[in-house]
């Protein structure tokens, strides 16, 4: 096709653009124009980023002070960017909904961060990291972005060490690495089970240093409720001061969203209570495309649900899979026995059985689904919990599989295991009341990460001019499935190294026309936000926000979770539409809008989750293939493995808001590989 050759001159594409023949989502969407990344780089893959960095324009240091940048989010992506842009001398305004930038949910990442340092001399390289990431993502990511990520990964480690991030070290004082799900090299840097915390504190401290220097202004307990567009350009945000309730406008030359993932659309997830989609969704409603919203990562090693009161799920780092062996009883009647009394021959180490070469280290989606099947098969372990069936009846199911450290303890000794996983195992014990050194841990998959997010070009700019999106909030680098320890890498790559370069090219045209609050576009955004808040406060119905969120989560988990079908998704869309009506007519928000009001905060977030949920289902319905975290029941091999359809779906699905009553518009961006070739994933 002509398009492809224009964008990859001199390079041989290894695949043809796909042509979709199925149309499961017919009637739910409108097909729009094809989408092409206007900033896609050209040339040999190793040179693309270097060339781009050189070609991008710079901003004169003396002018930087005159340029205002709004960064929403203080996680790895936002915090690192705020620090770096502050150091460069721009005027940065940083926002987060927590009481301190240090609390962004990046803090919760446990396992580690990848980098192609090849310190273990086990054959790692930028290319291998690139290849593993593209392959792990089931060939649904842009190759140029992924290569760049691999390339800057090593700089990230250097930067973090210089900031004082206390990574694990070997006896000689050099940095230690471990291996992580889905790859055969040891390239993961870690700080016990608290890598995200340490990386975030590094970025946070760098950012606070800039606050002291006066280049960054931090607005904590501020929630972005809308994006301000002036003449089609992103020029600011409307935010609610969560302490006073005041609705404020903040204006700038450019807006960056680094607002994290939206896994909480499932109600239960490993995300923080406050994680939300509002910032991204408001931008989407103003025209930004939402890409691949259905790509959800379900993490295999979380602590199982104990009852209806559950407010969130807790991850047990998958690094545990390095040393733990996953099993269920071979016989259903053994499921309520003390696991220590089940002899080895009666145990089914199902991952080792099904995937002999990767064993317990298969990718997350595979491990998760396998656990689900074991439990569906009646061989789950742990307490029985009530489960609502599709026909409305309830049954009792055990939702858990064992993750057994006994062999590792025997092999390495308790001390060594303790040193490696100490805090994780403590946490497990605290939550479950069981001692993991004695009894095998119980785990079950839970929603953990979303690969979908706002569509961005190679320079991390969305289709709205002047709106950049970084970190988990964008869609760009992980395709249909993210490898372990790669989100931290992406967040920091975006924040420290990519955005600071690409945003300069954009700002080289600035400063843009000075604005003040009286501008009609600003007033309009302000009015619409105020109206929405007033509306939420005045519905005064019967149902708590929480109960509606729970119901949404249930629909999403049931029909848009680990296994999705046409029938289920269609049903889900209907249910969500009803729920949306229920919300806007029957929700109850107490208190007042002009003071701290957590109910109102939640209501704002849930309203957007409902709309997002619908789009996720439509996207999942359209994508009649199984790839990465997205598994369609209709698309599997005879032995139940995910079946991809590159001929139909090798594209990024970028959805445009279709209006309150319209249907979303699908723009397809073809994925063409030149530096590698699409292959079926195999972890057998």
């Amino acid at each position: 096709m002509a398009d492809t050759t224009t964008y990859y001159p001199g390079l041989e594409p290894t695949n043809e653009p796909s042509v979709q023949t199925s149309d499961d989502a017919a009637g739910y969407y409108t097909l729009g124009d094809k989408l092409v990344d206007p900033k896609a780089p050209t040339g040999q893959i190793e040179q693309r980023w270097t060339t781009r960095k050189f070609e991008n324009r710079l901003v004169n240091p003396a002018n930087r002070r005159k340029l205002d940048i709004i960064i929403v989010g203080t996680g790895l992506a936002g915090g690192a960017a705020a620090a770096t842009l502050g150091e460069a001398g721009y005027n940065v305004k940083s926002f987060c909904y927590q009481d301190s930038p240090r609390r962004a949910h990046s803090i919760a990442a446990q396992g580690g961060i990848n980098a192609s340092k090849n310190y273990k001399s086990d054959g790692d390289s930028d290319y291998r990291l690139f290849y593993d990431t593209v392959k792990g993502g089931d060939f649904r990511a842009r190759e140029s972005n992924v290569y760049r990520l691999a390339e800057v990964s090593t700089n990230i480690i250097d930067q973090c060490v210089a900031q004082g991030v206390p990574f694990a070290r070997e006896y000689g004082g050099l940095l230690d690495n471990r291996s992580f799900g889905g790859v055969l090299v040891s390239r993961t840097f870690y700080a016990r089970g608290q890598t995200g915390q340490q990386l975030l504190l590094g970025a946070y401290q760098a950012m606070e240093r800039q606050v002291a220097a006066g280049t960054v202004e931090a607005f904590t307990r501020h929630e972005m409720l809308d994006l301000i567009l002036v003449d089609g350009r992103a020029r600011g945000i409307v935010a609610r001061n969560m302490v006073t309730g005041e609705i404020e406008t903040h204006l700038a030359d450019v807006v960056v969203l680094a607002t994290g993932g939206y896994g909480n659309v499932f109600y239960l997830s490993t995300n923080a209570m406050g994680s939300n989609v509002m910032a991204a969704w408001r931008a989407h409603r103003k025209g930004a495309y939402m890409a691949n919203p259905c790509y959800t990562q379900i993490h295999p090693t979380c602590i199982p649900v104990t009852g209806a009161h559950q407010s969130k799920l807790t991850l047990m780092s998958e690094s545990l899979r390095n040393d733990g062996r996953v099993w269920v009883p071979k016989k259903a009647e053994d499921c309520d026995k003390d696991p220590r009394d089940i002899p080895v021959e009666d145990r089914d180490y199902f991952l080792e059985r099904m995937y002999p070469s990767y064993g317990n280290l298969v990718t997350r989606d595979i491990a998760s689904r396998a656990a689900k099947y074991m439990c569906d098969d009646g061989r789950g372990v742990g307490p029985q919990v009530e489960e609502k069936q599709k026909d409305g009846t309830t049954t009792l199911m055990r939702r858990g599989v064992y993750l057994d450290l006994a062999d590792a303890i025997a092999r390495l000794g308790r001390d060594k295991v303790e040193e490696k996983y100490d805090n994780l195992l403590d946490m497990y014990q605290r939550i479950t009341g069981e001692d993991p050194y004695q009894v095998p841990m119980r785990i079950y998959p839970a929603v953990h990460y979303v690969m979908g997010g706002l569509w961005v070009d190679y320079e991390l700019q969305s289709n709205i001019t002047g709106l950049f999106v970084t970190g988990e909030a964008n869609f760009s680098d992980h395709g249909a499935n993210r490898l372990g320890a790669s989100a931290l890498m992406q967040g920091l790559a975006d924040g420290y190294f990519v955005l600071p370069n690409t945003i300069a090219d954009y700002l080289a045209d600035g400063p843009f026309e000075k604005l003040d609050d009286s501008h009609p576009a600003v007033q309009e955004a302000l009015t619409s936000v105020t109206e929405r808040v007033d509306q939420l406060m005045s519905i005064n119905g019967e149902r708590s926000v929480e109960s509606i969120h729970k119901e949404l989560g249930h629909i999403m988990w049931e029909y848009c979770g680990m296994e999705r079908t046409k029938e289920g998704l269609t049903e889900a869309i209907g249910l969500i539409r009803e729920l949306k009506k229920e919300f806007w007519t029957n929700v109850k928000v107490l208190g007042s809008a002009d003071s701290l009001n957590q109910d109102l905060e939640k209501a704002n977030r849930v309203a957007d989750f409902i709309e997002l949920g619908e789009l996720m289902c439509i996207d999942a319905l359209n994508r009649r293939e199984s790839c990465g975290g997205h598994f369609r029941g209709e698309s599997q091999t005879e032995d139940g493995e995910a079946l991809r359809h590159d001929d139909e779906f090798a594209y990024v699905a970028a959805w445009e808001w279709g209006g309150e009553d319209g249907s979303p518009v699908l723009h397809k961006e073809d994925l063409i590989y030149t530096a590698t070739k699409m292959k079926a994933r195999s972890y057998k």
Partner: protein
Amino acid sequence: MNLTLKIWRQASSSAPGGIHTYQLGGVSEDMSFLEMLDLLNEELVTKGEEPVAFDSDCREGICGMCSLMINGQAHGPEVTTTCQLHMRSFKDGDTITIEPWRASTFPVIKDLIVDRSAFDRIIQSGGYISANTGSAPEANSVPAPRDKAMHAFNAATCIGCGACVAACPNGSASLFMGAKITHLGDLPQGQPERYSRVVGMVAQHDHEGFGGCTNIGECTAACPKGIPLDVISQLNKDLRTAMVHGF
């Protein structure tokens, strides 16, 4: 189980506050403490009463957002955060008194929520290593002894929750400060700013109005991350060296 909850309610920072008593049934021991409060709030909303405001975010003991003085103990009876405290630590019929952190430097915003921005300002006054992005040398070019690095890591696990201040009869933030000073001071990268860091942070600490440390030790007992008093000694030592050398 059934519980009697005595909770501090306060509409805003300027409004007067007081203890309100609630009865709550249907609490299971698998619930976390905050899920127990969620349950109370759900009941309050149904009755048309405003829910109790309290902070939490990650609910896995790492972000430091949750707080609460539970029966006179910061984060409750176990060595963990409130969000990781589970109801199996209580029994049927218990009366639980829940109050916000009490310190002038942490003013109450609403009910159980306080403003801890003073901690950010302490970090701003020196709790970092100045290393501009892009200026870093190759990571393995500066080895750090393993035990030192582990020691630094242990101090770096502070989550900035403020329990140390809440538990301290003096309302001192020395444990929080000492943790950062020890973390950065233990690493080779932290040496150049070691002494200016401690002077800057202590000055800000005192300026904010945190109390002086008299080595009582309630902080470390309340600390969910078990930060030891050693870090305060380290702080004192660095401060003494800094003063001797005229920083």
